[in-house]
């Protein structure tokens, strides 16, 4: 499993990592019982602060997707609830892909699409809060 983080994206690195791991579990790329790299080796590999990895791992542990066994490693604990979610995620992915394809057909560049999505997410979260 190869993870990558992009410091230039306006999203905390630990959240990028969480999303990649969660996504890998939800789509079945990582399965129950599989191990993830130790904090120090993943930090060295990605060249990011170990605190980033710690934060991502502990949040996923809190969600019940990972199990941190002291001294022995980091294990995926993909329970059934996750597997039923896998189908939903795949369906949602398809919708997003379709939407992006449509926008590209209309001549929008990827960068423009990216910005629109970001602005829309902000707007939606604001509207949601005020509702």
């Amino acid at each position, binding site marked *: 499993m190869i993870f990558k983080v992009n*410091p*230039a*994206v*306006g*999203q*905390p*690195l*630990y959240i990028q990592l969480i999303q990649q791991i969660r996504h890998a579990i939800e789509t079945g790329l990582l399965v129950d019982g599989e191990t993830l790299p130790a*904090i*120090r080796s993943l*930090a*060295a*590999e990605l*060249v*990011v*602060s*170990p*605190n*980033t990895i710690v934060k991502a791992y502990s949040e996923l542990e809190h969600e019940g997707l990972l199990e941190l066994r002291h001294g022995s490693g980091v294990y995926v604990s993909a329970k059934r609830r996750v597997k039923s979610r896998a189908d939903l995620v795949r369906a949602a992915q398809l919708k997003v892909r379709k939407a992006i394809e449509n926008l590209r057909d209309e001549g929008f560049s990827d960068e423009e699409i990216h*910005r629109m999505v*970001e*602005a829309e997410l*902000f*707007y939606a*979260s*604001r509207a949601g*809060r005020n509702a």
Partner: protein
Amino acid sequence: MSEDVVISTHDLTKFYGRTPVVDRLNLQVPAHQITAFLGRNGAGKSTTIKMLLGITYPTSGMGTVLGKQILDAAQNREARCDVAYVAEDKQLYPYMTVEQLVRFAKSFYSTWRPDVESRLLRQFELPPTRKVRALSKGMRGKLALLLALSRRPSLLILDEPSEGLDPVGIEELLQELMTASADGVTIFFSSHQIAEVERIADRACIIDRGKLRMNISMEEMRQRCRRITIAFQGDPPDRAFNFPGVRRVRTDGRQTVLLAEENVDALIELARREGAAQVEVDPVSLRELFLETVKEGHDALV
């Protein structure tokens, strides 16, 4: 002092002649994190570090390193037992060979780790019998890092560590720093390599003309800082965006560009209320924030 702060300064000041190089600096560096100390050449980074280490005496103000007063020679010596320092010039001892220098340095520290020493000697491909004077700048940098990391300090201070290293050397350096950090070493390093800082740092402190201009968590920056580009049909409204959290407002024709540290949602709503035709939100990079911060300081001078 708080256990969580490894470096703390209060109005720390250094004059060279009549010029303040460090000007009432108030800096807090948390433990168990990687903190970058950013600034232009001559901003006061090295002088600050030298004051922390007792190499240069402050003109006024005070500070602590690992809870020990920097103005008190005995306390400062105590602190330095737990602090490793990689200097900017990496002079070391030119007449010793690599081997001799490692043996010499090791004799001072009971916490020396032979495993780290031999691993880094191999990895950095340092020729044991070559004199330090005959090493390239990059190799001297690696040797200095080896000496610092083999001591297992609780605080590692580096002054421009990647200077003089090639891209492979920089990657190796950063990986070693990440490993040390995972082992519990607090890291404080000065740099003007913004890209590497953006990648590895938990926190960035920006110093300009001797003053601390910003002390920000990198994850908070990614989460909260945004550039908001607002396009209007007619002239942009005057002063509408002087709002808490807005670091800078720039107007160019029918466009207003905001650099916001918080209240992004409120600003978007405000833009729409002011009749914005289009609102775009982009993440802000450390480079942009740094340039704005440093530039802002110079504008204020005029």
